């Protein structure tokens, strides 16, 4: 049975450390598969102008392309180079919720994320994505500091 580990990246340097940790972990498990996931923060319940709506599809494609080329593809390439079986995915949505959903849908056995660098009022009010993920995830979560 293959073990699948999901690595949640957010484009910050803690994500790099999460990646290093995942490599280390995967090297100890035989036939371990790695899935690099990047979630673009987005909510279907916001207010937009008609013009923004008309441009939305174009923007979405741009956002996905950017996330792939800047974050996901380089990470997958570095994992593949190191000899791991790796793939990537980019999604829109609430970060914690979506990361968990991707993991469950793909049959991942655990999630590795970096400690988020978000601070200030919003974090105090709503908690960070990492906190939410740790509290609500259906699989074990490892937070790399």
């Amino acid at each position, binding site marked *: 049975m293959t073990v699948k580990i999901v690595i949640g990246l957010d484009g910050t340097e803690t994500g790099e450390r999460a990646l290093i940790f995942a490599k280390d972990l995967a090297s100890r498990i035989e036939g371990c598969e790695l899935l690099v996931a990047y979630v673009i923060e987005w909510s*279907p319940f916001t207010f937009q102008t008609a013009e923004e*709506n008309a441009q*939305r599809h174009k923007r979405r494609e741009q956002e996905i392309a950017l996330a792939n080329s800047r974050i996901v593809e380089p990470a997958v390439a570095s994992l593949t180079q190191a000899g791991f079986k790796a793939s990537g995915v980019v999604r829109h949505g609430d970060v914690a919720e979506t990361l968990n959903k991707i993991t469950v849908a793909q049959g991942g056995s655990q999630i590795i994320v970096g400690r988020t660098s978000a601070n200030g009022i919003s974090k105090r009010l709503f908690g960070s994505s990492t906190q939410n993920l740790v509290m609500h995830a259906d699989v074990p979560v490892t937070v790399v500091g």
Partner: protein
Amino acid sequence: MNITSKIWLAAATTAMAATPLAAQEAMSLDQKVNDIFAASTGWFVNFIFMSLPGTNFPWIVLWLVVAATIFTIYFGFVQFRFFKHAIQLVKGDYSDPDDAGEVSHFQALATALSGTVGLGNIAGVAVAVGIGGPGATFWMILAGLLGMAAKFTECTLGVKYRNEYPDGTVSGGPMYYISKGFKELGLPGGKILATLFAVFCILGALGGGNMFQANQAHAQISGIVGDYPGWITGIVFAVVVFTVIVGGIKSIANVTEKIVPIMGILYVGAALIILLVNYDMIGWAFGQIFAGAFTGLGVAGGFVGALIQGFKRAAFSNEAGVGSAAIAHSAVRTKEPITEGFVSLLEPLIDTVVICTMTALVIVISQQLIVDPATGHYMLNEAGTAIATVDGNSGVSLTSAAFGAGISWFPYVLAVAVVLFAFSTMISWSYYGLKSWTYIFGEGKTSELVFKSIFCVFIVIGAAASLGPVIDFSDAAIFAMAVVNIFCLYFLMKLVRKELASYAARLKSGEIKKFTH
């Protein structure tokens, strides 16, 4: 908002510092604008509001009511059968997680609503109740319920026949479904009708979507800071709108888009508070509404007068059958165009049945309309055109006085709400007008700039002209859109029925199912 309020403050100060002579000159400038405007648009207004031979019933009102009724029957009361489904769609129950990041049903609904919820709900209702009496409310609610089916029809078509460009952007609306739909059915004249619609849509954007808004926003502000010339308000508004639609200063539009829903909730909340405080009068108010609906209670034109006002204002407020919402909804990327139709049928409900009714109830309960104690009938003003009010208010100032009678400081909140509603409606309509403009004159930076500039000039004219001619022209232009749109919908509605039958069957069989979120 910050910039706006600063400019407002500056404008108000200038106005108050102006010498009486300057004010007089400015007033006469307003008067000139008004006269020229009334003279040049009169024929158009007269044609649209022409009465049916031998009656005083405008044919356009009958046109709208008949259409909404036909759509309601043709689609088997779709507004009630699929009401629950519409709510589920808005909640995202049927949204594919793979499509996350695209425009959601909720966003399309909110965008379309911010274009319709506005002065129609505040000032328009006051005009209807002020002329047609409380009974107009009954007809307004009925028109709102029937209008849901019309909205459903046009928005489904809007998504089905929109244009998708290689760069991923979309353009949609009646002009596209008329030309494409007629072609599909092998009918002639699609292109001509589509162009005609686009012409009326441009006029509607300049009228109801622009001048009426500027006019009533000015009325509201001058009611608070004191009388000053309308062109000052117009220029300030024009500058702000220009920076948004031409300068691309998204931040102003973004702030408004976020504040407008809050204002909407605040408005309904305030109305509810006033109604709760006067709960003992709600029964009486509904009594007035029902009695007035069938007898008129002495208003000009009797119960027909109430009916005409109710239907007119409902159509003006929720725009069902007008075709504007189809432009706003066509941005949604859904595999099932009909789902957008279901979502859109909630608009007349929220806009007319809920918000307009709230306004009407507050006006009736606040007893701003003067009743002759001897007969129980409403007293008419000197001209005999509208019901006499306590302070001689009409339009938005009547609503303001009614809310002020319940919550003394609310007129200030209302003033802010009116300015913001007016602003967001202008932004929405500038987009509808622009889409029609580019349909006729082609897409391109210069073409767009020409329209946007014309749009801003009309803001100044709208703020400077007096209410009568502006409201007439606004109504006429918007109803002219409905003439073309509804005529075409009669031919195209069988395409929608096919979609509806197929979707309903797949929903029943379980082929279309909820996604677990």
